[in-house]
């Protein structure tokens, strides 16, 4: 089994993001599964960013561990990540390689590291160097020479990195791809051609020249990395290309696509990391998809515009992070009072106020379950993977429309920003229902429409304003069935009960928690949202050590699946909750809703995602 990690690090502005996306897509097209997580600072230039791309021949769900190879675009990256390298790992770093003769004499740090640069042919799996091999490549200089600009240094670096995946045979054969269709290197060549085609032949030529020059720099040194070489050998190539090929996308893209698959017609939003790519993607697809994307003056305006659009008949959404959601809270209540379906994507980051703007956490669970004053029904979905984010977004639109209530899709920086490999989305399972039955209103007496008519389900028929002979009156104030404001206590009780009566059917419409790999075990690990990946892989690790453990993951969170959770957790000897906050909000919710008290909790609130291996260790200690 292949499961290795290639990382790219450098300053903001050095093309780390672009290079890692190109690397990930190249490897997906070569037949691999990817999980790629960006570690970025909230700045546009400078600082230190890195993205670790986990590559495997089976589906992977969580953040990478130690790096097998690192492309270090600056010196800080070399220092910062030395401890992150596996034994025998390879760093490709910006700079000139000291000449061979000086290796033995030089006392400076770089030379000592370079001494450990060995031809991998000399070294088997059992005799690895303690410290990483550091290969110096003057990326900026090569980029200037072959690309006319040092901004292409990242492409030079990619060439060098991918050269590590080639076999270490004779220099002659190394210069060419033995099987041009299958090698990751040729996949990247094709990708660069596609990517830069619109910028003209010269830009394509420069990029390809940079790529080759970077690769040649490594090829000449006859250095390879054992794990990386396996990548080149096991690549399955074009089997994965074409229409049935795997998708490589972020959680944000999956959410935006889920909205488009649900017939979204209106999006208003205000930029806020890590949710912004959703509005950017929808803005780019406005004409093609037939929707309006409006950048609002603030998050208050965003959700209120969405409510106006929903009233007018459009499927409508907004996306934000915790700070923006805090501003939207009054609007959320108005959607509930006016009984209008709106979908709000809340991509969590760490901390109150501005906190860690580009980091991940799960501290807003209890906030979102009760945001806005008084009581009203709402949906909350917390998908665990990109695939689930796509489906849950569709469910959010469908169920919000069916019950005429607000729905929140709870993401976080880990889910939203990571690049995921998805086999493909199951479009057969997505639904776009019609929200209006206008034919039922043809020929009815004028002015007979009652927006808030009491029905057995608590859901009143909707009509678009503008329908001939009927008026649609929607209110944020308490109102009667016709939409007239009232202060009558009996009407208040009747209308409140009408709204709340939807809850039971709402709970019934939700999907059951995901149990992995089976429903019952001695230990139940309970989690929600993006913790799915680390928890699932931690369960795999523990089960390989014969620990009886299973994961229970909640995507469809609110209304809380009381009966299902009670039944699922009853046989467990121990219930351990795992979540990204400091007080155990899921544990509190579980106890409030079912009376079940978690026997132990694993909590994390440093702004970084859970890692499978350390999570397995923590669970083991608490078993």
């Amino acid at each position, binding site marked *: 089994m292949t499961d290795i990690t290639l990382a790219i690090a450098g300053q903001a502005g050095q093309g780390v993001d672009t290079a890692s996306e190109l690397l990930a897509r190249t490897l997906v*097209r070569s037949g691999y599964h990817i999980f790629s997580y960006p570690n970025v600072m909230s700045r546009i230039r400078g600082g230190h960013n890195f993205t670790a791309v986990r590559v495997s021949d089976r589906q992977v769900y969580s953040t990478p561990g130690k790096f097998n190879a690192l492309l270090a675009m600056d010196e800080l990256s070399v220092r910062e990540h030395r401890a992150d390298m596996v034994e025998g790992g390879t760093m490709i770093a910006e700079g000139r390689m000291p000449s061979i003769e000086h290796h033995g004499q030089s006392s400076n740090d770089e030379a000592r590291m370079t001494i450990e640069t060995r031809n991998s042919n000399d070294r088997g799996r059992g005799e690895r160097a303690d410290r990483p091999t550091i290969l110096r490549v003057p990326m900026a200089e090569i980029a200037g020479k072959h690309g006319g600009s040092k901004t292409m240094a990242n492409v030079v670096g990619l060439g060098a990195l991918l050269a590590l995946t080639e076999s270490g045979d004779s220099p002659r054969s190394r210069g060419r791809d033995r099987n041009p269709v299958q090698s990751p290197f040729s996949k990247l060549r094709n990708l660069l051609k596609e990517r830069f085609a619109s910028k003209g032949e010269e830009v394509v030529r420069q990029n390809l020249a940079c790529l080759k020059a970077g690769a040649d720099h490594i090829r000449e040194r006859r250095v390879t990395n054992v794990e990386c070489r396996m990548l080149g050998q096991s690549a399955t190539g074009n089997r994965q290309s*074409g229409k049935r*090929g*795997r998708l*490589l*996308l972020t959680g944000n*893209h999956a959410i935006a*696509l889920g909205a*488009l698959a649900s*017939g979204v*017609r*209106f999006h*208003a939003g205000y930029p806020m990391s890590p949710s912004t790519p959703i509005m950017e993607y929808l803005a780019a697809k*406005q004409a093609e*998809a*037939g*929707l*309006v994307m*409006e950048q*609002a*003056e603030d998050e*208050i*305006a*965003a959700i*209120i*515009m*969405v*409510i*106006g*659009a*929903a*009233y*007018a*008949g*459009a499927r*409508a959404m907004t996306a934000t992070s915790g700070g923006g959601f805090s501003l939207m809270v*009054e*609007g959320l209540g*108005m959607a509930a009072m*006016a009984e209008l379906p709106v979908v709000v994507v809340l991509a969590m980051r760490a901390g109150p106020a501005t906190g860690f703007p580009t980091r991940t956490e799960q501290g807003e669970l209890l906030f979102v379950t009760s945001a806005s004053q008084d009581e009203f029904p709402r949906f909350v979905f917390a998908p665990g993977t990109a695939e689930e984010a796509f489906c849950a977004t569709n469910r959010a639109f469908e169920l919000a429309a069916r019950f005429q209530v607000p729905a929140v899709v709870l993401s976080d920086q880990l889910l939203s920003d990571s690049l995921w490999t998805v086999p*493909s*989305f199951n*479009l057969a399972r997505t639904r*776009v229902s019609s929200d209006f039955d206008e034919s039922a209103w043809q020929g009815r007496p004028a002015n007979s429409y009652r927006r808030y008519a009491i029905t057995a389900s608590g859901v009143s028929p909707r009509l*678009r*304003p*503008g*329908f*001939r002979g*009927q*008026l*649609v*009156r*929607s*209110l*944020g*104030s308490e109102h009667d069935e016709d*939409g*007239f*404001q009232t202060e009558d206590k009996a009407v208040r009780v009747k209308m409140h009960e009408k709204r709340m009566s939807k809850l039971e059917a709402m709970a019934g419409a939700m999907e059951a928690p995901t149990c992995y790999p089976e429903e019952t075990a001695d230990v139940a690990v309970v989690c929600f949202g993006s913790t799915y990946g680390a928890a699932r892989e931690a369960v795999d690790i523990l089960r390989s050590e014969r620990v009886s453990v299973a994961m229970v993951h909640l995507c469809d969170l609110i209304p809380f699946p009381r009966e299902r959770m009670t039944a699922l957790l009853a046989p467990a000897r121990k219930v351990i909750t795992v979540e990204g906050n400091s007080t155990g909000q899921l544990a509190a919710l579980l106890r409030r809703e079912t009376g079940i008290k978690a026997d132990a909790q694993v909590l994390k609130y440093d702004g970084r995602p859970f890692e499978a291996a350390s999570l397995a260790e923590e669970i083991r200690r608490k078993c």
Partner: protein
Amino acid sequence: MAPRDFESNDPIAWCPGCGNFGIREAMKLALSEIGLKPEQTCFVSGIGQAAKAPHYIRCNLFNGLHGRTLPVATGVKLANPELVVFAEGGDGDGYAEGGNHFLHALRRNLDMTYLVHDNQIYGLTKGQTSPTSEAGMRTRTTPCGAIEPAYRPLALAVMMDAGFVARGFCARSRQLADLIKQAVEHRGFSLVEILQNCVSFNHVNTAKWYSHRVYDLAEENHDPADRDKAYGRALEWGDRIPLGVIYRSGRKSYDQLAGDMTESRSGDSDRVPELLDKLLAGFR
């Protein structure tokens, strides 16, 4: 339809003598004369005495939160451009709580009419200072007199090159109805500010106070296309207060610039699988 066909059954909850009654008369007159049917209109309001106004008119209605009138109207218009959209509220709703939305609605220039009942005081909450209260005005929250100078929203609208800027007066329903008609006919964002007395809480700017000061711009050869002159008129306040069309801009409206929105919204759910196939190809 006659003006009385626009009367709703909702019992009116304004004080006797309130300036809002005159505004309601003008509104019924305008709707009747434009020739609209109630179902073609959509009135959006927030919270305040003025925000109650659409309840007393037969129309499609969205009555939401204090200050959030314009964003609702924006969403309605973007999602259903065929509706004739009115946003209606008071000085507190539009200039204080909704101040930022006002600024951006002026920039956005969607085809809608914004009616602001300006009585220079908070009525629903019983007599606190407003953004348009004159400096020195004593209210329940400014017992020693308001420290801040009054806001001049019409001047801001001219500065922002708003499409149509006008001022009416609740006691002159006929003129006000004509201004509302012109505002609806204008393609783009139209601001109609309406001077209104508050019999319960504003004992300075009474109906008589306004009557002695207002004059009609139409009688003074004012050219609404002249932006510099319009700016001067928009700032004019005190002994003389202008009524009528202050400014008209040649600026194109949002829908004119965005292309045919009706076309872009015509996507139906049958197209979804085809669209998704195409979009997913971009991620392979």
